[in-house]
Every structure is written in structure tokens, then in C-alpha cells.
């Protein structure tokens, strides 16, 4: 029997959902998970920023609402409480401020619709997650926003789901290629060896070059020169993001063969597919200290802009392009 989406995340407590674009089916994915979660579990929901409006404020398309069961918890901004039609018990009023008021934690005393507008930073989401736990949440779903890869960070979520859909690009092939690129980048390999080498002292500097010895640098001004001389270097650890422009200049000036560019996790890799190809062509690659746990990709063949994909073709081709399960949450 084919596994359901819920089966894939069943063993994880906190799951984040992020999308390749708007209308990629995040809410559908969330509703699918909510419906399939056993009734005995206390569910908790929040989002990064605002989501779950019945009409998409950017594209004006009808969006599915989030419908939760009695007993579930959710965190949303105070001004949105009037749009949540569950009978509410307020369990906490946090200090986290948003343009829509402070984030409030609610226990649903009945079934009903909710609109989510959670905090805007991952650190604040971690706080909300911890509060949910103290109020007895068994499972926490975090609805994401477009382009917020940091949501996949393991400090926040034990597992993540990536949503993609026809709204991303008119071309099915390009949608699949780009989704596969993001998926593979997110799943960048964990460097177990470097984890034992690196310590707090290295993390306080921006760059750490590791070969036989470890040397640290606060900035990248002489990095190309340093890399030229460091013939035996194996890893270049970057605290913070590896950007496209940084990587391009490294590729232009050259680096030791087989060098692995390492970041904390793959959400810190802000690079284009083209640059990654060039890196691989020069025998370089990426590594991370903590591998993101991408559990599945979900697809939405319907586009908010017209021009839908064939659902079967989409799922088949997407499955071929990635190594993780691909699921259509509408089915």
C-alpha cells in the first residue's frame, strides 16, 4: 500500500511546511495532515507570518480554509481571532508583537475554521513551539511562507515538507527541475567528520579552513589567496550564509580540488543552480553540520494563473527527479 503523507511524518513531533511559490498547496497539505492525525493526539498549529486567508491577498484566488478539531491548539495574531470561528479558550497572550497584534495561544473548545498569523522569525517560532509543548501538544505543524527555507531548520522542525505546484512556472519541466534543485540542496549531506573537529571557538569566526590544521578568518577579503595556498584543505566552514556572489568569486579564483563548502544547515545555502553546477564542475561540493530532514514533496497541479498540469504526469516526473516521496494531497 502506498504511504500516506501522515505516515511519512508520523515519527516526528514538529513538522514545517514550506512552498516553492504561492498557491503551491501548503494549506491543502496542512489540511491533509490535520485530517489524518489520530483524534487522540493534541494538535498545535501556527504559521510564519500570515497564512490561511480564505482569499489569497496577492492573487485573489479562492484558498482552502484551515479546519481544526476540538481540543487543538493554535497560535495566531490577536486581530485575526474574529475570523476564527471555533469556540475559544485563551491560554496565553505572548509578548511577540506583529502588525496584526500580539500572538495569542488558543485552545479550540469546538471544531472550526482558523486563520493563522504566527511570528515572523524562526527564533520566535521556536518559543511558540516550546509553549505548545508545555500546553500538552503532541504534534506541531508550522505553516510556512514562500522562500523561507529557514523553516526547515532542525532547531525548529524535526521534519519538513516542500510544496510545489503549477503556479510556480508554466513549464512543467522547469517546475520539476527547480523543485528538484531546491530539494537536493536542502538535503545536502551532513559532514560527520567536521562536526568532531569544529568547536565554539571556530564558530565565533566567520570562516574556518580545515585541512591538517584549522585556521579561522573573520572575513573573506583574502580568502581567494588563502585558498590558493591551502593545498591540503578539505573543508571551508562558513558561519552564516554561503551566497552566490561569494561562491562565484571562489570559483573564479580557484580552490583546492575536492574542497567541501560547509554551512550550519542547507537553509544557509543561498545559491543558484548554475553556480552549483560550476562548483561541481570544479570538483567542489557542499556539506552541512546538520542535515535537514525533508520528508516529502507535495504537488498541486492547479495553477492560480491558469494552465494546469496533468496530475499523473506531474507526480511521475517529480518522483523521478528526487529521491524522496512525492504526494498529491488532494487525492
Amino acid at each position, binding site marked *: 500500500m502506498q504511504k500516506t503523507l501522515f505516515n511519512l511524518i508520523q515519527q516526528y513531533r514538529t513538522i514545517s511546511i514550506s512552498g516553492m511559490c504561492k498557491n503551491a498547496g501548503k494549506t491543502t497539505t496542512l489540511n491533509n495532515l490535520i485530517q489524518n492525525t489520530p483524534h487522540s493526539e493534541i494538535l498545535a498549529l501556527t504559521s510564519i507570518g500570515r497564512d490561511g486567508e480564505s482569499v489569497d491577498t496577492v492573487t485573489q484566488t479562492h484558498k482552502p480554509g484551515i479546519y481544526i*478539531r*476540538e481540543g487543538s491548539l493554535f497560535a495566531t495574531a*490577536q486581530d485575526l*481571532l474574529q475570523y476564527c*470561528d471555533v*469556540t*475559544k*479558550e*485563551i*491560554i*496565553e*497572550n505572548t509578548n511577540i508583537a506583529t502588525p496584526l497584534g*500580539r500572538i*495569542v495561544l488558543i*485552545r479550540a*473548545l*469546538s*471544531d*472550526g475554521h482558523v486563520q493563522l498569523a504566527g511570528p515572523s522569525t524562526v527564533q520566535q517560532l521556536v518559543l511558540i513551539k516550546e509553549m505548545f509543548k508545555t500546553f500538552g501538544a503532541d504534534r506541531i505543524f508550522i505553516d510556512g511562507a514562500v522562500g523561507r527555507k529557514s523553516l526547515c531548520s532542525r532547531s525548529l522542525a524535526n521534519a519538513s515538507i516542500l510544496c510545489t505546484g503549477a503556479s510556480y512556472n508554466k513549464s512543467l519541466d522547469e517546475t520539476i527541475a527547480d523543485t528538484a534543485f531546491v530539494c537536493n540542496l536542502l538535503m545536502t549531506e551532513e559532514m560527520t567528520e567536521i562536526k568532531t573537529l569544529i568547536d565554539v571557538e571556530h564558530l565565533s569566526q566567520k570562516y574556518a579552513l580545515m585541512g591538517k590544521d584549522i585556521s579561522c578568518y573573520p572575513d573573506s577579503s583574502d580568502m581567494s589567496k588563502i585558498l590558493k595556498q591551502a593545498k591540503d584543505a578539505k573543508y571551508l566552514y562558513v558561519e552564516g550564509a554561503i551566497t552566490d556572489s561569494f561562491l562565484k568569486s571562489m570559483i573564479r579564483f580557484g580552490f583546492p580540488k575536492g574542497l567541501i563548502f560547509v554551512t550550519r544547515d542547507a537553509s544557509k545555502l543561498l545559491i543558484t543552480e548554475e553556480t552549483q553546477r560550476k562548483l561541481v564542475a570544479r570538483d567542489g561540493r557542499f556539506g552541512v553540520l546538520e542535515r535537514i530532514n525533508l520528508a516529502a514533496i507535495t504537488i498541486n497541479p492547479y495553477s492560480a494563473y491558469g494552465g494546469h498540469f496533468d496530475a499523473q504526469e506531474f507526480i511521475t516526473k517529480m518522483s523521478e527527479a528526487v529521491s524522496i516521496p512525492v504526494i498529491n494531497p488532494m487525492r
Partner: protein
Amino acid sequence: MIDLDYEQKKRIGFTYVLDLIQPTSPYGKEALRHILPASVEQEQSLRMELENIAKIQKILKVSEQAVIKLLEIFQQLRYIRASIEGIGGQMSEVDLFEIKRLLIQLDEIIPIFEEINTDAQLNNITMVQTKQALMILDPEESKIASFHISTKSFPVLATVRNEKKEVEKKLREAIVPEEKKALQAIRTGLVNHEQKEEQKAILWLSQKLEPWRKILLDNIDAIGKLDLTVQKAKLAITYGGCLPKIVEGKIKLTNMSNPQMRSILNQSERQFTPISIEMKAGVTAITGANMGGKSVALKTLALNVLLIHYGFFPFAEEAVCPVFEAIHLISDDLESSDRGLSSFGGEIVKLLEIQNDVCNAETLVLLDEFARGTNPSEGSAIARGVCAYLNKQKAFTVMTTHYEGVAALANAHYQVAGLRKLELDAKALKDMQKTTLGERIAKIASYMDYGLIRVSIDEELPKDAINICRLLSLDKEIVDLIEMHMVL
């Protein structure tokens, strides 16, 4: 009017002292933010406020645990003044949640406060029991800090919610789309009805709470006052403060300290010398060599007098002080450049501004090196003139100066002890010459006494400057020439 601007308060170390205290509750923080000096009319309440600090200090000795417990609860309080002020009118469920939580916290706070207050008998700090108000928001007496509109007092709401629940149950089991749609439509109707009933319930609760509005506001004010008083008491214990006597016509401060100066000196491993001063109306002059001691004395006096007015214990062993209606500090580091004046011009403008106040006994004027910025012969004459004038006035004036002949026109004279203790015989000087420059500087610093000594008004200025030249082993030829010019 306490006429010290932010920069001056910072320089005398007042801002530093305020930063030393950290109220635990948001209401204590609010009270600190809005702290104001007492005026002459508020003398009685200032006395009571100061007494409260002494009472709390006593409590801290006998039952510190109760205070610690209280502060722990204070720390969990949230700033919800706006929600309380909204009682009686339009409120939200979140407002009611916050008020319920406060009422639960008050339920814990008030018994501990009563216990403390039985011993302490604090002036003007009282709290009123709010158990009855909690019953309104927590009819089930759950004492859980969460809030929902209970159906206990609202039978219609109870019916609507039950009907809604039935529909939702059916919705969970419905499979056929048409059936689902029909159920959803019924649910929407019930949701609207529920929301209307909830609005009614909130308004009812809000009105029911109305009589408690003022009581809650008074209670949070009392918490703020108490919190701030505890912090003031702890500060006085840490830095050494005393209950001042508020008395007209006399200032007496014995062994005063200044935490900011003390911390600066401690960083360079030097000690702060306590300063004592006693004065009446008219001018008290402080003289001394150009080594800083005068300014420190003036600033420390300003700080401690100001602290008393703000309801703090002064950092002193003994303190007697009237309540001043006006305190003016004039120093040539005044911000005068924006008025296009030299620093000297700025001093004169300031003097003009305070002229009406100086004939008043409830005025304290602090002049730091008045007319220092102008040429010495005129500056000296100006300082003497101003001193003679102010000495005839009812105001209290303290003048620091390094000009000769000013103190003779004042009614009291203090000198920075300076290098008095240092015996400058030939042998000592010779020994000095053998040491390095660094050692010589350290030696002078160690002999420098910043304490104040009461001297007669016609006592000459100490000749510390020339002694410093000698001690640093300045070329003998130069020292001889300096001495020759001193005689001339």
C-alpha cells in the same frame, strides 16, 4: 523647579544611580520611569516615602523570604493598564484573559503583602482584596490562568454552543458533498449566533467588573510603589544610605559618597574619599588645587540632595536637608553653544535666569568654578562679586573656585584636603628624585586627599600646584622662576 537637565543629571551621577535599580514588576518600572522630585508642598508625603524605605529595610532583615516571594510574583506580572482602563466599556476576550490572570496573581500577592504590612505599617501603600472580582471571570473557581466565556451565566449561549457541537459532530461523519454543504450552512448560522451571544456576554462581564476598575488601578499603583520602595531599600543597603531628616534652614551631609565616582576610581584602583559638609543659607565656598576634588565634592553634594528630593536615601552616614523648591547647577560645561554664546556667556545667562529664585530660602544654587572660562583677573573679580551678592541672599549657595579672595566673602569655607598630609622636606624631595616618573605620579595620587576640611573664610589657597611641580621633579630653574613670580 529642579533645574538640572539630562546631561547634568548624568554628570553628577544621578542617572547612574537610577540605572542601578531594576524594579521587578512592569508597574515598578513604570513608577521609576515617571519618577518626579517632591516639591515644598509635598514635604509630608516625601517624609512618608522616605520612612517607607526604612520600614522595608527592617522587613528585609526579619522576613526577607516573604519579600523575595512577593518579588517573584511581581516578576510574572504583565503590563495591562490599558486593559484595566477599558473595563466597563468595549473589551476583548484577550483583555478579560489578562484581567483574570492579574486577579489570580493578586490573590497570591495580597495575603503576602498583608503579612508584610502588619509588621511594616507602610505609609500610603494599601491593597484591596479582589476575590469577588475573580469570581466574575472564574465562576467555576478553576484558578487556571486561561480564559473562555463560560456558559454558566449565559443559558442562550449554552444552547447555541450545544447545537453547534451537534452539527460539527455530524460534519465529521458526513461524506456526501451536498450533505456537508448543508451542514456547513447550518453551522455558519450558529457561529454567527454564538458570536453575537459572546459579544453580549463580554459586555455583561465588562459591566459587572466596572466597580473593580478603580480598585485594580489602585492595586497596580500600590504594586509599583512597593516594588520601587523595595529597590530603593536594597540600593541603600548595598551602597550605604541613611534616612534623611527633612529640616528647614540647614544642610548637613556626613561622609557622603557617589556610586558613579566610586566606580570610576575603583577601576583605577583608587578609593573614593567620603565628603562631609554642613551649611546654612548664603555662600559656602569650596576651594582647592586644580586637581578635581572640588568638582567631585560639588557633584556629590548635588547628587545626594537630588536623591532626597526623588525619595531616595542619600549615600551618607547622616543627612539633614530641607525640601528645596528650586535647585540650580551652573557649570561652564553647560550646553550654551546652541545659543551662540561662549561658555562664560552661558553662565551669565543662567545667572540671569535664576535671579528671581535666589532671594528665596527654598533655593539651592550650585556654582562650579564660576567664571573660569574668562580671563583670570576679570574672572576673579566676577567670582568675588557674585559671591558677595549671593551671600546676602536667602538662598543656599555652594561655590567651588580656585580664585583667591572669593572664600573671604562667603560665610563658610571648605578646602579639599589635597596634599596637606605630605611633608615636603628636603629629604623627601631628594628621595622622590630617585624614583621614576610613573612612581612619582602614583605617589602624588596616593597622598592626594579629596576629603573636605572646614577652614576659616580667610584661609589662603593651598599651594598644591607648586608642590606638584616639585614632586614631579620639574627642573629646579623653572621651579625657582615660578616661586619668584609668585612673590611678585
